[in-house]
């Protein structure tokens, strides 16, 4: 079949789809991009078997057809072309591009050999606000584990129940949980574990357009419909560990401190912290937080005192400075609350300001202060 499109239009779609082309693979067909025409639409798609990206461009009427073509070469040719209309001719086993003066031919692999991409079933689609989704992802994804021996933790847990939804991520040392009430979900219940790759791609793509995202929860995959572009990912097998049990109950050792002050201080501490542990010590006394760190290799030491609200007993506790900064970065409002137990139990960190219908909480496990 034959059709013609402006270069910039194809290129922007191809660019999106390129995100799913793997750099190295055991299945050669995966370095190809699928081109499919049907119902007066051109569909471009690629997958690395984790994430799939599909983009559609409306066409005038055209015949049905499909072929996979080497993605890199296709993309590079398009990129180098001047702005013009490109005529594309797909045959059974090759593609021909005609632009202004030149013709470019590439041979492909039959579409039957390409993995079957997930089917977008619009009937099951649920609309979620893109900004809500982006916020939830950003506030949890940093805590996802990279440890392959605990596969369930390699993704973000996404729980939906009725109108509420919640995302959780943990690597065993820290945990982030965000729940939103009264979203547009209707009576959907379920737990899925989503690999971070697709979520990262999603926030990258949603940021540009603050609109609603269609989500389809499948049995084996999740699909995000962004209109012209569709993202899909395989899910991780559960079960997710019972994270509720590790969230400590209320504690009397509560410290309230200014977020800006603390962030600056921890940053400065981390410069002279032990390069392996990044340990920064929090010494809590009445209304006073003393931070300290030491790097014996450098012969460096740092100490800083901050005013805070604290009435509990004196407590010394160590944290990985970069973990603390990760959390502080995601918290909103001027003041943050640390709810602490002992020097080896989880610290609960949240923002002083409560937002209606939103609940965000981080847990951080301390570093042992021994030595």
């Amino acid at each position, binding site marked *: 079949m034959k059709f013609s499109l402006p270069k910039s239009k194809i290129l922007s779609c191809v660019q999106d789809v390129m995100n799913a082309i793997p750099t*190295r693979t*055991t*299945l*050669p*067909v995966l370095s190809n991009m699928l081109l499919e025409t049907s119902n007066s639409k051109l569909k471009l798609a690629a*997958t690395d*078997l*984790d994430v799939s990206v599909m983009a559609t461009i409306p066409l005038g009427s055209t015949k049905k057809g499909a072929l996979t073509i080497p993605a890199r070469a296709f993309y590079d040719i398009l990129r180098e072309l001047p702005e013009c209309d490109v005529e594309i001719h797909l045959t059974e086993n090759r593609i021909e591009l005609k632009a202004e003066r030149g013709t470019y031919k590439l041979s492909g692999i039959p579409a*039957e*050999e390409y*993995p*079957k991409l997930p089917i977008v079933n619009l009937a099951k689609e649920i609309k979620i606000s893109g900004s809500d989704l982006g916020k939830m992802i950003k506030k949890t994804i940093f805590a996802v584990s990279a440890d*392959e*021996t605990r*596969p*369930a933790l*390699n993704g973000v847990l996404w729980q939906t129940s009725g109108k509420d939804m919640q995302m959780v991520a943990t690597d065993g040392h820290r945990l982030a949980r965000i729940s939103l009430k009264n979203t547009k979900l209707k009576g959907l219940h379920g737990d899925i574990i989503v*690999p971070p790759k697709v979520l990262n791609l999603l926030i990258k793509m949603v940021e540009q357009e603050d609109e609603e995202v269609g989500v389809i929860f499948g*049995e*084996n*995959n999740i699909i995000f419909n962004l209109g012209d572009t569709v993202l899909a990912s*395989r*899910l*991780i*097998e559960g079960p997710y560990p019972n994270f509720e049990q590790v969230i400590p109950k209320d504690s009397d050792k509560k410290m309230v401190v200014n977020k800006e002050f603390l962030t600056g201080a921890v940053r400065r501490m981390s410069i002279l912290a032990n390069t392996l542990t990044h340990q920064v010590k929090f010494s809590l006394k009445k209304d006073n937080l003393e931070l300290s760190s030491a790097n014996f290799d450098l012969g460096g030491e740092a100490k800083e005192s901050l005013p805070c609200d604290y009435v509990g007993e004196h407590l010394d506790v160590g944290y990985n400075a970069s973990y603390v900064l990760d959390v502080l970065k995601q918290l909103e409002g001027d003041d943050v609350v640390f709810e602490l137990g002992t020097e080896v139990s989880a610290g609960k960190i949240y923002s002083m300001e409560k937002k209606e219908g939103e609940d965000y909480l981080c847990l951080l496990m301390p570093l042992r202060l021994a030595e």
Partner: protein
Amino acid sequence: MAFAEVLDQKVPKKILCGALRKNFLASTYLFYGDQGTGKWAMALELAKAINCEKGQREACDACSSCLKIDKMIHPDVKMIFPVPSVKSKEKDSKEIERYKKLKQEEPYTIVRFDRKVNIPVEYIRTLQREIHLKPFEGKRKVIIIAEAEKMHNSSANSLLKILEEPPLDVNVILTSNDVNKLLPTVVSRCQQIRFGKIPTSIIEEKLMEAYHIDKEKASYYANICNGSYGKALDFLRGEKENLRRDTVDLLGVATHGKTSQIIQMVNQMLNRWDRNSILEMFEFLVSISRDIYMVQEGSYRLINSDMASDVVKLSEKFERQNKVEHVFRMADQIRFDCQIRNASQKLGLLSLCLKIKELSNREAIIP
């Protein structure tokens, strides 16, 4: 090609079909037996049956799942096999493509590399992540690891972690030519299925059908392949002719030559052929000494019928039958020692040749 196309192997078929029928597949299978007896073919068939879109208990060979598995491009059926360890990733994937292509053309093919091969630990490590993802398009994920004994300790230990707690929608199939070299902890976590030798008549028939050769030739290959269709194909393709020629030459030197010549010849052989070929050389020695015995008994139903004249010549060198029998036994024993007990091939081959020299009738050549 469905189970019917797998040559013989009635017992494995019965076990697997039964398990499929009752929906009671083991999460891990270990197919073990000689090279070229159909372990790979059976593993493919099982993967197809598990994922066939028709949902029958056997592959339909028509749906896209079956076709993709046949082409080895199904995203949920991972196939891992040993490749020569190379530094560059490019070469690596070239070797994989070659392996796949050969196995795709003929699943019974015995794929050989000119270098030492192993299953790199990275393959198993990526598996570890992938098996915890839900299937991409199929019903279940299937992992086939061919020649699993070619895993290093680190690979085997990584695999062990997968086998300890496999997700429910995964089936792992290991195949192995030498189950003794697998970690016992791996073996104990598998349902083991033994693949026996394929009857000569079945190989003969299949060769005639698939390669359109006449009965005489087919029966000759079927006889010398020792129950392995894969090896029969090797002979058919003439890949073993040189090795057999060399074996007969070696026997010639062992019966005629001086000790120094024998040593020289043995060294030559070891330089020319790799470990596996030397093992096969022992097998030839066994089959040729069997033929010599037959000639002395007055029978001409030889395995190596194409070498009849050589065999007759050699038979004149041994005066009494029990001497040939001695050679026969010793060759078999040394083959076993080299393969299983890690004996030195050089010493094995040399001592066998010197024994042949001692047993052969030296006077006969002097006149």
